[in-house]
């Protein structure tokens, strides 16, 4: 497993400059328009998506075939993608929190409530789509996998909207937005964990 993670580290490190440009291009504008805390979600998405990109890269370079012949189980190969996805999400969230904190201090407008909401949103928007897009990237070719990723964000938005609609019956969503985000974030962690537990075994049995 360590070797697989070292490989992912090298591949992702190679695209860091591009990621930084994307992060600055999208993040700076939105940070001014909405809130510096939005950087937490952007950093989480930008970094975690790299794990999906590595799955497609593995296919185009035939590493997926080669790795299946290595002295590591195919379950471990799939699990390494879940692990790298999680690590990148955590790194993205941590980086986002630090940058958000610095930006808020500079703007002298720090709001802990807002930071927590975006923190939860970052968990939702990275883990929930990841639980769908990782298996999609293994099963489908590049084109369909991109559709799977888009679909995973649509499903995430739908679930979030559905949950707000459901909770509306019991509470005022705007007054309890942090609680709603917290519940959805916890739900995302559960779904991602279930995907991690259930998919690797099934995916490892597929023909390459």
């Amino acid at each position: 497993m360590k070797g697989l993670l070292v490989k992912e580290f090298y591949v992702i490190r190679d695209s860091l400059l591009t990621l930084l440009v994307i992060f600055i291009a999208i993040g700076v504008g939105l940070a001014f328009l909405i809130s510096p805390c939005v950087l937490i979600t952007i950093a989480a998405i930008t970094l975690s998506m790299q794990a999906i990109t590595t799955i497609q890269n593995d296919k185009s370079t035939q590493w997926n075939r080669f790795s299946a012949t290595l002295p590591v189980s195919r379950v471990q190969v799939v699990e390494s993608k879940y692990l790298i996805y999680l690590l990148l999400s955590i790194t993205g969230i941590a980086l986002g929190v630090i940058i958000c904190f610095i930006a808020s201090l500079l703007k002298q407008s720090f709001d802990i409530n807002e930071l927590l909401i975006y923190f939860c949103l970052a968990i939702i928007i990275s883990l929930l789509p990841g639980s769908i897009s990782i298996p999609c990237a293994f099963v489908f070719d590049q084109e369909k996998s991109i559709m799977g990723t888009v679909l995973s964000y649509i499903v995430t938005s739908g679930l979030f909207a559905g949950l707000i609609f459901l909770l509306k019956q019991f509470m005022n969503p705007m007054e309890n937005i942090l609680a709603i985000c917290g519940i959805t974030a916890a739900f995302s962690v559960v779904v991602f964990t279930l995907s991690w537990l259930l998919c690797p075994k099934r995916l490892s049995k597929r023909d390459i």
Partner: protein
Amino acid sequence: MKENALVVKGLKKKYRDFTLDDVSFNIPCGMIVGLIGENGAGKSTTINAILGLIKKDAGTISILGKKDNEIDNGIRNQIGVVFDGSNFPSVLSARKLNNVLKNIYSTWDENRYFSLLQKMSLPTDKKIKEFSKGMKMKLSIAVALSHHSKLLILDEATSGLDPVVRDDILDMFLDFVQDENNSILVSSHITSDLEKVADYIVFIHKGKVVFSKPKDELKYQYGIIKCGAAQFDAIDKEEIIAYRKQDYEWEVLVADRTAAQKKYPKAVIDPATIDEIMLLYVKGEMK
């Protein structure tokens, strides 16, 4: 009798438009076995099934004495695999690849890897995406030889390479089997390469093994009778393996050209190359 490094028995895999049907062959230790056949004949499917990349429908595969359900990391450490083209992430360099693979293969030999890179004149710090096709192939072979493999499995490893690089690679294969515990399965449609190095030839056509024979038997015993219609009619049909009619003559493949020469002294009987044998099986008619 020599032990077998690989035993494939009754291998079946069915796709919608192709079936690998009852494929069986062995690789004795210390031997190079060439898997030949036209494109789409089933060579890669066979190799994929051996490597466990696809699920077989039936049959058994034993690698280095272990059946397929017993193949563990210990056995995988001893199998070197080379696929056509590049096998590695293109953003890595040969040095970074070393850092990856030394954490995967428990038998990884860093010194051997770097000495092979030097021997093959491969740069250590250049990204793989900047390598030529020949360099990528050499790198794959360097990797396959750097973890003390006992069995090399190569799928079209020499295709698309220039004759000089191909010759270098074939020399490496011959070096590898100097140790009688080492064996190679190499699939190729460049039969001239296999004629140089293979000990046995397994010919697959339309998903079936047509023959699995020692190369020398094919080279020194098989022959092609080139004759006219009258002489063709006179040939005992039992002796014909395959034949085809060319513009002005018949080409007839026989298994024993010395016996055929004695029996038909006036006939012109040439030694058959593996290419010609394959062509007659594929494009000719069977008796």
